[in-house]
């Protein structure tokens, strides 16, 4: 049996509301909230980035896995906001958790599905018997250009999954990947903010790709949407994942636990992985979980997990994802502080 033996998430404390962003740009907040089904988003502090959030998410995963970090044979961080252009994020993480030096490491990029790529490869290496444990992480401190629609959703968070064969919490039953060359969202070299194709990011990109992957995964597994207790999809806004899920045949109640976007925003590579951690926080033995990520460019990774009887025993060994999301310590920023925190204000000498 191969699957998740430890999982954890990290969500920063800061938030900004849609109204605060809309006020600055003269936009109509109610129509954005209705259209995006989004109320607020997380914002990293100036001292937080993909590496720091990945470390904290992994520490939570290690609390649940209770393994020796020296047994982790691979570390893969998927992100489109790696702090360095040249120098891996994974080396810092592996050093911080004590997994060095006998460890394979790579940073992945594939827009918002870089995290599920890391999970896919980590799981496959364990399945192949190449190593005892492997770590896959999705994390981002995503950016949207000031005034762009993306600015209302681009947020920050991380999710970490340790894969192994012993004491499995959620067995990975099936996987499938589906991709085409679809230029719906991109960022050229040396550009600070990404560009996107507006409405082209919807039907021919997000919906076609996720549905293609989901359909193939259901055919491969010979399962139906009603067989699953939970489903989670990539969440660029609150509307898309619910719409695509219903088109595939899932019901609202199957998707609500992993549907974090309305108050978290779009954590890019972290989006569906963080949703999965929220599901694992409450899933019961035998529950089937359907997950399909999406990365612009464009592709999807699909997974079917089955919760085991080991899961309830570790759910409370680390902080729950919903507890971080709904924390009483949330701090709401004004747009000026948000701009300073996100490096949108250029200081003298920069």
């Amino acid at each position, binding site marked *: 049996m191969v699957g998740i033996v430890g999982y954890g998430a990290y969500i920063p*404390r800061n938030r900004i509301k849609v109204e605060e962003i809309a006020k600055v740009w003269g936009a109509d907040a109610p129509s954005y909230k209705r259209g995006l089904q989004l109320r607020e988003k997380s914002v990293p*502090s*100036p*001292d*937080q*980035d993909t*590496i*720091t959030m990945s*470390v*904290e998410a992994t*520490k939570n995963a290690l609390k649940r896995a209770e393994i020796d970090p020296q047994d982790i044979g691979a570390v893969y961080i998927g992100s489109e906001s790696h*702090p*360095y252009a040249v120098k891996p994020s994974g080396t*810092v993480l592996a*050093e*911080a*958790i*004590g997994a060095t030096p006998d460890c394979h490491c790579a940073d992945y990029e594939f827009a918002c599905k870089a995290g599920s790529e890391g999970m896919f490869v980590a799981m496959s290496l364990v399945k192949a018997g190449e190593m005892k444990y492997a770590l896959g992480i999705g994390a981002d401190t995503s950016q949207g250009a000031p005034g762009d629609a993306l600015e209302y959703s681009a947020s920050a968070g991380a999710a970490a999954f340790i894969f192994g064969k012993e004491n499995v919490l959620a067995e990975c039953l099936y996987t499938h990947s589906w991709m085409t060359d679809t230029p719906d969202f991109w960022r050229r070299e040396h550009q600070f903010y990404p560009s996107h194709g507006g409405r082209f990011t919807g039907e021919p990109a997000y919906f076609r790709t996720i549905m293609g992957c989901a359909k193939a995964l259901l055919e491969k597994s010979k399962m139906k949407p009603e067989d699953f207790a939970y489903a989670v999809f990539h969440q660029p806004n609150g509307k898309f994942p619910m719409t695509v899920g219903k088109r595939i045949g899932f019901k609202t109640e199957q998707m609500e636990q992993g549907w974090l976007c309305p108050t978290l925003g779009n954590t890019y590579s972290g989006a569906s992985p963080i949703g999965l951690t929220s599901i694992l926080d409450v899933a019961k033995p035998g529950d089937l979980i359907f997950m399909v990520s999406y990365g612009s460019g464009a592709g999807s990774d699909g997974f079917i997990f089955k919760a085991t009887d080991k899961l309830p025993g570790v759910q409370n060994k680390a902080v729950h994802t919903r507890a971080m999301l709904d924390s009483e*310590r949330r*701090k709401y920023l004004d747009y000026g502080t948000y701009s*300073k*925190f996100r490096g949108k204000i250029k*200081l003298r000498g*920069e």
Partner: protein
Amino acid sequence: MSAPKYWREMAQRYRFEAVKCKKCGRVLFPPRLVCPACKSREFENTRINDKGTIETYTIVRIPPSQFTDEAPYPVAIVNMGDNVRVLCQVADCEPEELKIGMPVRLEFRKIQQEGSSGILAYGYKCVPE
């Protein structure tokens, strides 16, 4: 901070690695070559807790250039138990929230960056528990 100096301190900054005197049991963070209590030179490796309490603090309102975007920020001496105290920034905490005796835990954060092209230095800051 130069890259070699930063690299040499990673075990302490990243993983809170300490040493424990084999003779008198005193925990030293960061490690030393000689135990200041009993002068022994024999140690075993250990790690300090990631949870502690604030012993005292101050607020930095006029920061060095690397910390301009974080001011005002608190800096505290945190009692980690085992007679170990660490000096670090307090993150995710408003100055008016700080109290002596406040429980905190160490969290991995970016400490500073060397201009726009130098290394990024990571390590611990404490956050309210």
